[in-house]
C-alpha cells in the first residue's frame, strides 16, 4: 500500500515538474529562512547555558535612587564579604576589565585585560585547552584565548611565555602565560581574551583597595547553595546598605537584586553601567522569527492554492480509488503523504539555501556579536525543529486540499460535472493574505530604507563627521602629541576628554537623594565644546585659565534646565558626586546615544589633562583619512613603544546605521520572496480559473466580446482581493515596521505615506502583469479550437 502511494506520488511529481518546482522553490526558501530564524532564536535561548552552575549563579545588581534601572557596578568588597558572612552563598566572584597594552617580544598591542577572583574558573565553566585552572590564584600568571595565542605566538605553545603589561608606563608588570582557554561562544555574557588575578588591580599608579566600600567592580556574582531562596539572600545583602551609603554619599542604594545568570545576556540592557556582553535588544532574537513565520505561512498558502489548482488532474484518480474500495481516510492519508514528500524535498533545498544564507546573516549581525551555526548533528533542538516544521508545513499547506479533494463523490466525478471552483472565498482570501504579507514586507523595507537616509543626514547636535579620536593616557602623552602634530595645517582643532562623547557615557545621580534625578555625566577637557561644535545657548564655556572652573563650575544642557523649570539657570547650584557646583552655561541638547535615546539631561564637568583618555582632532571631512595616516606616523615617532589607536567620530552611529540598513536589506529580501510567492500563487489561480472558464470565454468571444470585456470579467474578483490585501498589508506593514523601529530606536522617522501608496500601486501592477501574461495566451487561442476540444 505504502509503496503504491509512494510510486504514484513520485510519478505524479515527475509529471508535474512545474508545480513541484514552484512549490519546492517557495517552500524551500521559506524553510531556509525559518531554519536561520530558529538557530538565531536558539542563540538567545542558549546564551550562557554552558555554565555547569548556571541555575545557581546570579549577578548582583543594585537599584539606586534616581536611576531608572538597577546598576551593575556593585562595590568591590560586597560579594567577598557576603560569601563569608551569609550562609547560603557558596562563593562570591568579582570580575573587572582594564584597557592595557600587552607586549610580547617587540610586538605591542592594545588589549582588554580581564581580572577575576581566585575561584572564577572553578565557578564558571570556561574549559582550558592547556594549563591548569588553579594558576589563576597566582598573580604572576595570565590566561590567554586560543585566538590571541595564535596572534601572538603563531604555532608555538604559549605556555610559559612572558608578556609585559603596560610596558614603559607606571605599573608595568610581567606575567607568565599559564593556560589557554577554548573559544568562548559569542552569546556569552562574560567574554575575555586575557585573564589574570584580581590582584592586578592593587598595583600600578592608581592601586585599588578592594576592601573599601568606595571601590566598585564591573560585575559581581554569587553562587548560591541549591534550594536557597533569592529573597533570603537579598535581604541579608540589603543589611550592608547603610554602611555602604555612608561610605560613598554620591549614590543612594535602595536594595540589592539578584539577576539570574541565565538572563544576563538577554536582559543586559535592563541593567545600567553593565560591562557584561549582551544584546542591545532581545527582539533581535524573536522578531526575525515572526517575519520568517509570516513568509512560511505565505509559502504554505501558496502551496495550498497551487495544489488545489493542479488537483483537477487528480480527481479521476480519486474517483477510481473510491470505487476500488478506498475509504476517504485512506485518500486523505495519501494526499497528505504527497504534501509531506513535497515538504521534505523543500526541506532539503531549504537546508542548502540556509547554508548559503548563513554567512550573510552572520556578517550582517557580526557587529552585535551574533553568530549562529548550523550544526545538525550536535543540535537536537534544531533536528526536532526540522521534523516539526516539515510536519507543520505539510499539514498547513496540504490539509485543505486533502480534505477538499477527497470529499467528492465518484459518481459526480465520472459524470464530469465536478471541476474545482478555484474561485471560492477561501482561496481568494488566501491570496489576499499573500498580497498583504508581501506588502507588509515591502513597506517594511521602504520604511527601514527611508529611516537609514533620515538617520544618515540627522544632526546629532554635535560634530560627528570631522573628528578623529586618538586613545591616550594622561597629560604628558596629550601635550607631547598635541605639540607633535601642531605643524599639520589640516588640523583645525584639538581637544581632550576623559569620557568620550558618543562612545561611552556615565549616568549618575543628581542632587540629594530626594531630588530623584538621573543625568548623564560628561567629563571633558580643554577646547572640547569648541571642537565638538556644541552650542552654548546661555552663559559661557569652560576657561582653562580659571582654576575655579575645574573645581566649582559645570555646564548643563537645555533639557536639564527644562526639567528643573529654571528660568535663569546661570548661577544655580548643582550637587553631584557629593560636591556642589555652579552652573556657568547652558548647552543646546544633543544626542550622545545617537538614535538609541532621545537627548538626556546632561552635566559637563571640566577635567584637567591628567585624566584625559582621548584626544579629539578636528579636520575637514575630506582630510579624515590622510590626517589619520599622519597621526599614526607621528605617534610612532613620538611613542615608539605604544600602539596607536584611533577611530572616527562617525563610528558612533555605525551600530544604529547598521541596524537600519540591515533591517532594510532583510525586509527587502523577504519582500522579494513574498512577492514571488504571491505572484506564483496568483498565476496558478488565474491559470486554474482560465482553464475552468475556457469554454465560457470562448463562447463570449464567439458572441463578440472584446479584449476589454474579457479582461474585466477575468480580473474583477482579483482586483478586489488585491485592493483589500494591499490596503491591509500597507496599514499593518506600516504599523509593524514602526513597532520594529521603536524597539530599536527612540529617534526615527515613520514611513512616508506616499511611498506606501506607491508600493500598493506597484504590487497591483505586478498582479496585473501576472494576470495579463496568462490572459494573452487565452486571447491568442482560437475560440473555435477551445470549443471543439470541449
Amino acid at each position, binding site marked *: *500500500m505504502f509503496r*503504491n502511494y509512494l*510510486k*504514484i506520488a513520485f*510519478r*505524479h511529481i515527475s*509529471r508535474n515538474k512545474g508545480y513541484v518546482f514552484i512549490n519546492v522553490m517557495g517552500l524551500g526558501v521559506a524553510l531556509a529562512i525559518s531554519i536561520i530564524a530558529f538557530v538565531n532564536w536558539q542563540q538567545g535561548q542558549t546564551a550562557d547555558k554552558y555554565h555547569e552552575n548556571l541555575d545557581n549563579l546570579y549577578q548582583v545588581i543594585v537599584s539606586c535612587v534616581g536611576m531608572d534601572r538597577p546598576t551593575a557596578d556593585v562595590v568591590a568588597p560586597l560579594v567577598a564579604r557576603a560569601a563569608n558572612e551569609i550562609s547560603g552563598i557558596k562563593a562570591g566572584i568579582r570580575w573587572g576589565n582594564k584597557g592595557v597594552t600587552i607586549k610580547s617580544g617587540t610586538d605591542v598591542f592594545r588589549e582588554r585585560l580581564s581580572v577575576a577572583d581566585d575561584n572564577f574558573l572553578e565557578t564558571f565553566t570556561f574549559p582550558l585547552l592547556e594549563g591548569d585552572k588553579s594558576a589563576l590564584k597566582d598573580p604572576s600568571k595570565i590566561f590567554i584565548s586560543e585566538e590571541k595565542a595564535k596572534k601572538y605566538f603563531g604555532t608555538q605553545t604559549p605556555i610559559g611565555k612572558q608578556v609585559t603589561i603596560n610596558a614603559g608606563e607606571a605599573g608595568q608588570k610581567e606575567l607568565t602565560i599559564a593556560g589557554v582557554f577554548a573559544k568562548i561562544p559569542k552569546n556569552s555574557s562574560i567574554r575575555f581574551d586575557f585573564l589574570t588575578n584580581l590582584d592586578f588591580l592593587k598595583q600600578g599608579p592608581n592601586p585599588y583597595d578592594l576592601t573599601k566600600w568606595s571601590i566598585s567592580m564591573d560585575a559581581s556574582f554569587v553562587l548560591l547553595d541549591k534550594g536557597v531562596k533569592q529573597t533570603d539572600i537579598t535581604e541579608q545583602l540589603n543589611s550592608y546598605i547603610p554602611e555602604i551609603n555612608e561610605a560613598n554619599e554620591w549614590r543612594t542604594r535602595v536594595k540589592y537584586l539578584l539577576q539570574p545568570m541565565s538572563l544576563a545576556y538577554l536582559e543586559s540592557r535592563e541593567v545600567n553601567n553593565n560591562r557584561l556582553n549582551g544584546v542591545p535588544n532581545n527582539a533581535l532574537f524573536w522578531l526575525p522569527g515572526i517575519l520568517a513565520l509570516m513568509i512560511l505561512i505565505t509559502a504554505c498558502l501558496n502551496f495550498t492554492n497551487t495544489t488545489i489548482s493542479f488537483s483537477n488532474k487528480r480527481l*479521476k*484518480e480519486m*474517483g*477510481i*480509488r*473510491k*470505487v*476500488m*474500495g*478506498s*475509504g476517504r481516510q*485512506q485518500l486523505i492519508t495519501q494526499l497528505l503523504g504527497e504534501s509531506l514528500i513535497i515538504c521534505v524535498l523543500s526541506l532539503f533545498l531549504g537546508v542548502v539555501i540556509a547554508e548559503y544564507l548563513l554567512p550573510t546573516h552572520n556578517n550582517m549581525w557580526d557587529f552585535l556579536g551574533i553568530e549562529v551555526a548550523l550544526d545538525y548533528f550536535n543540535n537536537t533542538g534544531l533536528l526536532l525543529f526540522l521534523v516539526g516544521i516539515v510536519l507543520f508545513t505539510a499539514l498547513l499547506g496540504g490539509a485543505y486540499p486533502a480534505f477538499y479533494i477527497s470529499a467528492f*463523490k*465518484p*459518481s459526480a466525478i*465520472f*459524470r464530469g460535472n465536478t471541476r474545482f471552483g478555484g474561485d471560492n472565498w477561501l482561496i481568494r482570501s488566501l491570496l489576499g493574505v499573500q498580497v498583504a504579507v508581501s506588502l507588509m514586507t515591502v513597506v517594511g523595507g521602504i520604511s527601514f530604507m527611508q529611516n537609514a537616509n533620515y538617520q544618515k543626514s540627522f544632526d546629532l547636535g554635535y560634530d560627528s563627521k570631522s573628528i578623529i579620536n586618538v586613545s591616550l593616557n594622561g597629560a604628558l602623552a596629550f601635550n607631547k602629541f598635541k605639540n607633535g602634530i601642531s605643524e599639520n595645517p589640516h588640523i583645525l582643532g584639538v581637544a581632550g576628554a576623559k569620557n568620550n562623547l558618543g562612545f561611552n557615557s556615565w549616568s549618575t545621580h543628581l542632587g540629594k537623594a530626594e531630588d530623584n534625578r538621573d543625568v548623564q555625566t560628561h567629563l571633558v577637557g580643554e577646547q572640547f565644546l569648541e571642537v565638538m561644535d556644541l552650542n552654548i545657548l546661555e552663559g559661557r564655556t569652560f576657561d582653562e585659565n580659571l582654576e575655579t572652573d575645574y573645581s566649582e563650575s559645570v555646564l548643563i544642557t537645555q533639557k536639564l534646565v527644562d526639567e528643573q523649570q529654571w528660568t535663569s539657570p546661570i548661577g544655580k547650584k548643582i550637587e553631584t558626586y557629593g560636591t556642589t557646583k555652579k552652573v556657568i552655561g547652558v548647552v543646546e541638547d544633543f544626542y550622545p546615544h545617537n538614535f538609541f535615546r532621545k537627548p538626556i539631561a546632561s552635566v559637563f564637568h571640566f577635567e584637567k589633562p591628567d585624566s584625559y583618555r582621548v584626544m579629539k582632532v578636528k579636520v575637514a571631512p575630506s582630510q579624515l583619512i590622510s590626517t589619520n595616516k599622519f597621526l599614526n606616523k607621528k605617534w610612532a615617532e613620538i611613542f615608539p613603544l605604544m600602539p596607536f589607536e584611533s577611530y572616527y567620530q562617525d563610528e558612533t552611529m555605525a551600530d544604529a546605521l547598521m541596524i537600519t540598513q540591515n533591517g532594510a536589506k532583510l525586509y527587502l529580501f523577504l519582500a522579494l520572496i513574498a512577492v514571488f510567492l504571491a505572484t506564483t500563487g496568483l498565476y496558478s489561480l488565474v491559470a486554474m480559473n482560465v482553464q475552468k472558464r475556457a469554454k465560457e470565454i470562448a463562447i463570449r468571444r464567439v458572441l463578440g466580446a472584446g479584449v476589454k470585456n474579457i479582461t474585466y470579467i477575468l480580473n474583477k474578483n482579483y482586483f478586489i482581493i488585491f485592493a483589500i490585501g494591499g490596503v491591509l498589508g500597507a496599514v499593518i506593514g506600516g504599523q509593524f515596521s514602526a513597532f520594529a523601529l521603536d524597539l530599536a530606536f527612540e529617534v526615527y522617522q515613520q514611513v512616508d505615506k506616499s511611498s506606501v501608496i506607491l508600493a500598493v500601486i506597484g504590487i497591483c501592477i505586478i498582479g496585473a502583469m501576472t494576470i495579463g501574461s496568462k490572459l494573452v495566451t487565452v486571447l491568442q487561442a482560437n475560440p473555435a479550437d477551445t470549443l471543439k476540444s470541449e
Partner: protein
Amino acid sequence: MIQLKNIEKYFRSGLSKTYILKNIDLTIEEGEFVTIMGPSGAGKSTLLNILGMLEEPTDGEYHFFDEPVHKLRERKRNDIHKHYMGFVFQAYHLIDELTVYENIETPLLYRKVKSKDRQSMVAEVLDRFNMVAKKDLFPNQLSGGQQQLVGIARAIISKPKLILADEPTGNLHTKQGEEIMELFKKLNKEDGVTIVQVTHSEKNAQYGDRVINLLDGWVATDEKTNQ
C-alpha cells in the same frame, strides 16, 4: 441477491420534484446476467450507481443479501461495496500514473491482501487475460480494447460476486467489443459472477439473460432474452 423496493431518486427545485428514478422494484438473483437499456436520460447510470452504492437513492429500500443497505452506515456500506462488487466503466478509468500490473493490484491493496498473495493473484489474472507481456506498460501505451481488458481484470481480481458495467464497449470498435462481451459471458457462466450492464446495443444485450428497459425513470419492460 439484490432487492430494490420502491426506489426513487429526485431533485427538489422549489416546490416541484424532478425525478430521475421513480418507483423502481427490482430483484436480481445470484448468477444472473442483467442488461439495463433505455434512451439517454432514462436513469440507467443512476440506477447502476445506486446498485453499486456510489449514489444513494432519495427514497426506498435496498437489500443486498438481506442486508438493508439503505439503513447501513457509510463504513459498513463501503465494506459491502469493497468485498462484493467490481466496476467496469465505458471510459475504462484506469489510473494513468500506474502500470497495468499496479492498476490491477490496487483493489487488493484496499482489501489488505498480503503481498505474496497479491503477486500470485495478479499473475494469475494477467495470465488468464494474456497480458503478461504488457504488465509494465502504462494505460496510455495500450489500445482501447486492451485498456478495457485491464479494467475488467481489475474488476474481477478480488473475486466479486457482482460486476457492474457501465457501457463497457461504448468506446470500442466492434471486434474488441465482441471480445469483451464474450469475456463477460464466460465470467458469468464459468465463474458464476452476477453481472449487471448498461448498454445501448441490442446485440450486447443478447449476451445476457434478462433485459430491463427504463423509460423516464420507470421500468418499462423487464423480460428474459432469447437465450
